[in-house]
């Protein structure tokens, strides 16, 4: 992937968050809390859990469906970061060779199961976190964090990061384009030129930071970024939160898949 496509990819994730669906309209605080609860519930499962994790895919699936987020987009992103999870678990089958199950004559070692469990947990947590960003505007998430008690300095940093990542990337894109236009083949695109480009970008950024600081001072900046609370918690938000908590509690403490299996068996007989 070239720099341009990376840039437009981030832009796409950002644009998704400005849609107007039921999920997008929910109060950001509620979504942050629900996502946190979901993450903790998934992580709380023991090392060899596989079956119990599967039903949890219902949660991101529902979010995707109601929030009108493309499945392929989220899948691509999950695949992009999957090497990290794979690296963590890939040696488990070699280290933990004790057989714990036999399926159709093939012995399954504990390591394979725990590896699978890691992959499932990874897919669940990353896709849900991505969906939070895709269904909530970044400033919304920041204000939610602020109102949930995160220090203002930290939130200000996040807000500036969001505001200027696009400006910075556009600047980097312009610089690389200018280089590509005047470098033919490999000449001009080597590491030494690259280092200088980074230097230029850094100097430009420092200059810009100074101008931004002047602009902030001109408008009475005194060390804290003030903000107005925009939304209150509505009935829909509470319903969503209650439903999520109920969903998580049921799927965590009651073996849903087993229940469905039993039910099916009962019906067959």
């Amino acid at each position: 992937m070239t720099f341009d496509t990376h840039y437009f990819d981030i832009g796409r994730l950002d644009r998704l968050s400005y849609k107007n669906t039921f999920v997008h309209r929910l109060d950001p605080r509620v979504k942050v809390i629900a996502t946190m609860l979901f993450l903790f519930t998934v992580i709380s499962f023991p090392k060899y859990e596989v079956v119990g994790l599967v039903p949890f895919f219902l949660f991101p699936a529902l979010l995707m469906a109601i929030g009108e987020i493309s499945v392929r987009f989220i899948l691509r992103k999950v695949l992009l970061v999957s090497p990290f999870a794979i690296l963590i678990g890939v040696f488990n089958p070699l280290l933990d060779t004790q057989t714990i199950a036999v399926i159709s004559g093939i012995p399954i070692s504990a390591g394979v199961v725990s590896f699978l469990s890691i992959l499932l947990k990874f897919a669940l947590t990353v896709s849900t976190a991505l969906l939070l960003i895709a269904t909530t505007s970044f400033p919304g998430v920041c204000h939610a964090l602020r109102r949930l008690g995160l220090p203002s300095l930290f939130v200000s940093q996040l807000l500036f990061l969001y505001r200027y990542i696009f400006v910075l990337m556009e600047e980097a894109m312009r610089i690389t384009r200018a280089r590509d236009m005047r470098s033919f083949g490999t000449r001009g695109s080597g590491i030494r030129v690259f280092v200088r480009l980074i230097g230029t970008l850094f100097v430009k950024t420092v200059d810009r930071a100074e101008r931004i600081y002047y602009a902030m001072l001109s408008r009475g900046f005194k060390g804290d970024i003030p903000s107005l609370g925009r939304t209150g918690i509505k009935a829909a938000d509470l319903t969503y939160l209650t439903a999520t908590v109920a969903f998580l509690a049921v799927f965590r403490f009651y073996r849903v898949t087993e229940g469905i299996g039993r039910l099916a068996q009962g019906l067959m007989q």
Partner: protein
Amino acid sequence: MSHHIIEFEDVFFRYPDGTEALRGIRFRIIHGESVGIVGANGSGKSTLLQQMNGCLLPTSGTVTIGGISLTRKTRQEIRRKVGVIFQNPDDQLFMPTVFDDVAFGPLNLDLDEACVRERVRRALGTVNGLDLQDKPPHHLSGGQKSSVAIASVIAMEPDILALDEPAANLDSKSRRALILFLKAFKHSKLIASHDLDLILEVCERCIVIGEGRVVADGPSGEILSNRTLLEENSLELPLSLQRG
């Protein structure tokens, strides 16, 4: 009304790297005047505007605004009176949404919530930007960005407006809207620009700056039709005066 007088007296300014940007600027602007500042690239226009609200302080000489002499201590007070609109709207719009950005100044003036919302509404209304409220600045076009940058400054209701190259990067329609807005703004204003037609239309007075000094100061019509003076300062006659 004597309290909105802008006075520069022998203002010198040297950047830390040794560049002498201003070398004895001297002028006086009375309330309600609109003044164009023109000059070649690097003549000191932007530096001069940054002295207006204390982003930079003179190395020697005095800047007096509304009877208050500009020092490190009086900067805060002067910033309430003077709204400076910088050249690049990306530097001016630092908050994540348009609403937050326009509300930034009023919130820092410690106004209550209802008042802040009213100010934001009025300021965005003035620049026809009410429907942009919830957008993030990076989704705006260049013209929209500069409108919002203006709104973010007028939301503080300054007595004096200082603009650095306000029409740069604007399409004709946005530029026209800007000119109409500037004409309607009744308080004092200082506009630094290379767009001499804009200066001719908006400002009754014009100051030419060259190498950090005031080269000429007089009615815009007179100065901007003086071909020799303009050419000496790397400028040329405004397009509207070139024919005939």
